[in-house]
């Protein structure tokens, strides 16, 4: 593939015209339609939201050192876990990989100049920001205490907190997801470079495509659900209030119809990143390409059929429980297939231990554990005991944090040189990966035990016998918090002081690596013609540079 004509190791960083220096000024950023700049706008916004949500988590874990609570009143604690959940789910995890890495890479990976609808892309970002403002307003104006799940009738008729601004914020941001998903679907269908058939696409694209299906089909349902909730709260019609004939369980069905597929929105892109990292750092084709591709699609489809497993103890019929249970077991199988394929990709590979690969390995282990603990919850008999306890909290954090956030960080570290044209200090990056891994396990493994012992979740105070495990978890959380700050520091540092990156520092395959780092605004001088399969390391060499 083409290489740069200048020796970029000697030229100062970003000395060629690229998307970062093509135009200057605030207007050129706030009115950009360049997918790469929009990706950076998202990066800044979601990083901010991550640290706000993370701050609430730190407060929670500090509070839970003492059985009677060490820091805040129960009413405040209830607000902390609600806002932590709302911000992390809707304003960090859901957009994270798709809006940052997806926006940056989708056109580049398929050999296009931009997404199908660049102005819609910018609109998506503005919608996200407006939604975030509503929710942050709710945070500042006293907070919200319903839990991120907004169960009725507590949220519709009893809570005295800022439910409507929060719901409105989430409602608005939902449209950001819908438009992004729409943009990705159309782009991937219609704008692939010549020769780039579906089965030559990088698996990251398959993963983003599957995620976009969920964006499109699921998000409108949460939108209408939250709108109904707001209406109920304002007008007390009785849609969800049993005192006037409504059904609170209807809310749960509508809510989880989106929110279960939402968790696959949060993990599928991370799985896509995994495929990219594992292939590059073992310098091998992915094992079982079509199996991995189809497993992304089947996860997206089956994810719409399992929402009832959040409701096994609501008194729904045993037979409904059986159906949701069997489907929940089924949705685990494609994920297992992926883990096996990633592992098999390492076989007879040429493996290097760069920071992105360390994040990838952390992901595979933690996702495996988190996913397998899902089987405890798909199993009806054990779910009865474990539902509503810290076991659930541990399960989803293993997947969301041990999985999705690790994948996000791995992806950021992998494509950072491409995005910024800079290299970061590899030693610090590996150290941070280790700190995060250790801190994570210490925070969340004890929570499995707490859950099994019976400690319910969302408890501002707890019986003293649970203290030891809580203290362990809080200790882990402090380590984890520090672990997340370290990349913030060195990545920011690298933007100014990091050495210049060449077009392909990792020696990776993929169209994005054929461009200079950072790429020019139009991505490619000439649209490439694709003649080989994805990750075809065996048949043509790519050197680091």
């Amino acid at each position, binding site marked *: 593939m083409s290489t740069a004509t200048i020796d970029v190791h000697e030229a100062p960083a970003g000395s060629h015209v690229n998307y970062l220096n093509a135009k200057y000024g605030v207007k050129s950023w706030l009115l950009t339609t360049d997918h790469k700049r929009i990706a950076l706008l998202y990066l800044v916004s979601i990083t901010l939201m991550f640290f706000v949500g993370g701050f609430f988590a730190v407060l929670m874990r500090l509070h839970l050192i003492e059985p009677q609570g060490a820091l805040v009143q129960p009413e405040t604690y209830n607000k902390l876990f609600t806002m932590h959940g709302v911000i992390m789910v809707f304003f960090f995890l859901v957009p994270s990989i798709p809006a940052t890495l997806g926006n940056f890479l989708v*056109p580049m990976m398929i050999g*296009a*100049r*931009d*997404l*199908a*609808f*660049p102005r819609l892309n910018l609109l998506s970002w503005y919608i996200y920001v407006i939604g975030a403002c509503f929710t942050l307003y709710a945070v500042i104006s006293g907070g919200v205490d319903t839990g991120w799940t907004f169960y009725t009738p507590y949220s519709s008729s009893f809570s005295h907190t800022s439910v409507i601004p929060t719901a409105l914020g989430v409602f608005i941001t939902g449209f950001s997801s*819908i438009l992004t998903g*729409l*943009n990705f*679907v*159309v*782009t991937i*269908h*219609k*704008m692939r470079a010549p020769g780039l058939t579906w089965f030559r696409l990088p698996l990251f694209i398959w993963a983003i495509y599957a995620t976009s299906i969920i964006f*499109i*089909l*699921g*998000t*409108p*349902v949460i*939108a*209408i*659900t939250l709108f*109904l909730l707001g*209406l109920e709260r*304002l*007008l*007390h*019609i*009785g*849609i969800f209030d049993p005192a*006037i*004939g*409504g*059904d609170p369980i*209807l809310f749960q069905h*509508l809510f989880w*119809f989106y929110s279960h597929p939402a968790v696959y929105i949060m993990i599928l892109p991370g799985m896509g990143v995994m495929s990219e990292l594992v292939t590059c750092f073992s310098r091998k084709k992915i094992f079982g390409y079509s199996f991995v591709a189809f497993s992304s699609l089947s996860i997206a489809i089956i994810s719409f059929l399992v929402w009832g497993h959040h409701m096994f103890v609501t008194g729904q019929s045993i037979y409904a429980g059986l159906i949701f249970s069997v489907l929940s077991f089924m949705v685990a199988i494609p994920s297992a297939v992926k883990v096996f394929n990633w592992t098999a990709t390492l076989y007879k590979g040429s493996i290097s231990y760069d920071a992105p690969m360390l994040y990838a390995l952390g992901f595979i282990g933690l996702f495996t554990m988190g996913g397998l603990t899902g089987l405890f919850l798909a199993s009806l008999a054990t779910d009865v005991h474990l539902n509503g306890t810290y076991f659930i909290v541990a399960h989803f954090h293993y997947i969301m944090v041990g999985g999705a956030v690790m994948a996000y960080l791995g992806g950021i570290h992998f494509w950072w040189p491409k995005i910024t044209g800079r290299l970061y200090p590899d030693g610090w990056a590996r150290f941070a990966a280790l700190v995060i891994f250790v801190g994570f396990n210490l925070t969340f493994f004890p929570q499995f035990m707490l859950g099994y012992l019976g400690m319910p979740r969302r408890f501002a105070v707890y019986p003293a016998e649970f203290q030891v495990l809580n203290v362990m978890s809080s200790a882990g959380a402090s380590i984890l918090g520090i672990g997340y700050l370290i990349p913030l520091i060195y990545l920011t540092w690298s933007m100014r002081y990091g050495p210049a990156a060449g077009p392909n520092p990792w020696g990776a395959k993929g169209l994005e690596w054929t461009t200079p780092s950072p790429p020019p605004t*139009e991505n490619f*001088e*000439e*649209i490439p013609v694709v003649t080989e399969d994805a990750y075809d390391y065996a048949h043509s060499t790519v050197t680091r540079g």
Partner: protein
Amino acid sequence: MTVHSAHPPGFAHQFEDMQQQREAGSLGMWVFLLTEIMFFGGLFAGYIIYRALYLPAFEIGSHLLEVQFGALNTAVLILSSLTMALAIHSAQVGKRRAQVWFLITTMILGAAFLAIKFTFEWHHDYVEHLVPGFGFIIRPEWGAAGQHVPMFFCFYFFMTGLHAIHMIIGIGLLTVLTVMAHRGRFAPEYYAPLEVSGLYWHFVDIIWIFLFPLLYLIGGRYIGGGH
């Protein structure tokens, strides 16, 4: 940058050629309409569940609606879909004046729909104290089912209101298109925005075609007759 020959008007440079642009635009609108189906779908699901639970109350509510205006509006919308299709056809055969007139007619019909809905139906309901949250009065003649009649009207106003918002957006789109058509922007080689907006307009029409029987025709109704 590669040198390329002059592109037709309206060409967007992220695409390789007009055909790709056209296909992308069309697919984009279909995908968007799919999201709209899911959006309305949640409401339809809630409506169907509560109708099954409170059928007597929903029948009472349905009979209180002005079915003649609902039927008139249905005719108005179907006609507007026809004029929209004719506008697109005019663009396909290059008739600029016909395009503009058909677009304007479509807008007028859309505005007529909204006028009938807001003045004859909604205002009437408000005066009759049938708007939940705005002075709803449960009438004794409704009997024991009366307490759930507000639920019907909640869904009625929400579903027709959401539909009306989509109509207003559609009329806004049509205004922009009318101006563009007047300036001669559409021709047999390039009328994609018309086509794509036509899809949207037809979709809004189809939503109404589902809403009308679900809301107005429960429990059997005969215009001019009793139940």
